[in-house]
């Protein structure tokens, strides 16, 4: 008779395995108090080594920076003849993510409206909107649009109140509001710059104009410049642009656009902010 046919043997085997585990030594180390022993020849330590003479053994080959999957390694230095400052790594390629993680490391607040402490707003008009929407999460988009119509933007307090009243997750409302480009979290701004990103405008240098506005307004598409003066947004020219990319400043199309113009326009708009004027 084959042993695997004996009834219950599998259960006994399983139990034996479980019991055996109880007597095995514990592999988990209570890390900060106890340290695992690492072989002196281990190559994966995140420290810089010094040679016998006391000079750094790292020769800034950047292989570690390139291999690092989460790109936490970055370095700068001088070349071997002490001539040039070097900063290469993967920073050019992953500049944006690097910027964000640098911001987080720096301890300064990263702009994210979910975590902002919120100022209370008058919830009266919002309650009317919610009543009109029958407090149904299914009507959230319409309610968010109406709320933006009343407050000019979507204050965090309004979103919180909406989440409480409708029973929708705050995250779901926040996610919906971020997924639609016409819903904003920042208060209305004095000026708005819209750049067309269609293929024809791209062909006419729209990408460079947009990059110039990004740089000089200090914000990406859909965002507001750090001083809260100008919003950078997109528009649609419908293929009617000719000569240069289609750009609107405060609703007025520019006759011509270029990266150089973008710098002067951005500076002029940021210097001249009509107070309390909504775009």
């Amino acid at each position, binding site marked *: 008779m084959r042993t695997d046919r004996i009834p219950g043997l599998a259960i006994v085997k399983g139990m034996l395995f479980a019991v055996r585990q109880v007597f095995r030594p514990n592999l988990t180390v209570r890390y900060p108090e106890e340290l695992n022993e690492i072989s002196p020849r281990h190559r994966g330590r995140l420290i810089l080594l010094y040679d016998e003479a006391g000079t750094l053994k790292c020769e800034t080959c950047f292989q570690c920076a390139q291999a690092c999957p989460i790109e936490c390694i970055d370095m700068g230095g001088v070349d071997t003849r002490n001539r040039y400052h070097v900063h290469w790594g993967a920073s050019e390629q992953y500049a944006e993510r690097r910027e964000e993680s640098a911001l987080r490391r720096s301890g300064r607040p990263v702009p994210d409206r979910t975590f902002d402490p919120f100022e209370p707003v008058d919830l009266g008009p919002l309650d009317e909107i919610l009543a009109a929407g029958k407090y149904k999460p299914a009507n959230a988009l319409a309610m968010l649009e109406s709320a933006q119509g009343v407050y000019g933007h979507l204050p965090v307090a309004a979103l919180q109140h909406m989440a409480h009243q409708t029973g929708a997750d705050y995250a779901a409302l926040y996610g919906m509001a971020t997924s639609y480009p016409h819903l904003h979290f920042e208060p209305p701004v004095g000026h708005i710059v819209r750049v067309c990103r269609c293929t024809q405008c791209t062909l006419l240098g729209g990408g460079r104009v947009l990059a110039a506005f990004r740089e000089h307004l200090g914000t990406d598409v859909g965002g507001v410049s750090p001083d809260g003066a100008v919003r950078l947004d997109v528009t649609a020219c419908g293929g*009617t642009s000719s000569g240069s990319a289609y750009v609107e400043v405060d609703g007025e199309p520019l006759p011509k656009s270029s990266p150089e113009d973008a710098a002067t326009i951005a500076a002029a708009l940021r210097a001249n902010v009509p107070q309390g004027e909504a775009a």
Partner: protein
Amino acid sequence: MSLPILDGGKDWPQVLLARATEGKLPDIEAAEAKGAWEAFRKATGELSPEVVLHTIAESGLRGRGGAGYPTGAKWRDCVTQPDPVHYVVANGFEADPGAQVDRTLMELDPQAVVEGTAIAAWVVGAEQAIIAVSSSAPVAAERLRVAVEEAEARGYVGGDADWRSLRIEVREVTGSFVVGEETVLLRALEGQRAQPDQRPPHPSRSGLWGKPTVVNNVKTLAAVPWIVAHGAGAYTSLGSAETPGTTLVQLGGVVRKPGVVEVPLGTTVRQILDGPGGSVQGSLKAVLVGGPTGGFLPPDGLDTPLTYEDLGQAGAVAGSGTLLALDESACLVEVATLMTRYLNDNACGKTIPCRIGTRRLAELGAGFCSGHVRPRDAELLSELAADVHDAALCGLEKDAANPLLSVMRYFAPEFEAHSVRGECPAGVCQPLSLAGAASS
């Protein structure tokens, strides 16, 4: 901000723009004198829904939104669903910011769109239909509303009796590029987050509010009345044998006469550029077919016929129906990179290969533009593009790699010029020259 309607010449039939008149819109009486709502009266008076469905299937009409799914098959799939509640959605949300093909049609002949929607709703037994228009096209929305009101006043729709109880709603939708995709549009109409759904089930089985829904582009629906009025045989005689009919195409870039023109399917890209486009100024470098998700065709590939299959094989898509001619002043690597970046910015974030993959594609392309190229980058780009395509949940993602892939396929020397020699043939980018640095 409207482009002119171009004259396609005597040989090219007019189906969609047959009644289009620029300037003041005629009211319903004038439109009826030219044949509007004739097909609807004929269908509801003399024919049965089954006969009309058969006619549409026979005519070989295919979705003009870009995918080219046979309209008759889509409707039949919806009709055969046991659920009694059906919907019809006319997709007039023109997502491509550089196109105004659908907008032109809706503004110049709203009656055709409304009539086509009404016939579709009558065939599939829908009591509610929605015409979705982008909020950036207020004129089109207003004209469609007027057209619906006029049709209601005439008693074609919106009545109390039986099949005349159809309610047509014109809805303005705001959203990003991805909202043009059918399942995303349905979510947006429901007031949910704009993200696509897994298909199957297709919307014809489970669409708006989970009910069987026919989602057709407005160009498809506007062709329906003509087919019903003139018969399937008349439609199959237009265009090519495999893909009959006409579609609307927008010409742009360095053509002498930019504008919108109705072309029979199967016409070659060269015929369109040289005929209504009035040929190209300067030397032609490439033609971008299909908007932001389209592909670049080289001058040798201009004899590609405008059909779904031929364009697909050539690496382009019918897409938004735009043909953009590029001359030597354009750097294709830069344009393709910026287009990929645009698509990435408009990704909804649901599938990770799209959300992160298109960003990495754009970064690889930007690496070529600035000369920061590693030896395996070209290989990596095509591998990643294949992954993004294979993991696609929606049409945007499936075609997101088209621009870069088509440039790699037809304009490989341009990539090499950037990466190896460190020069941009168009003089647009300033790639870092490793070869030049070594020799100096």
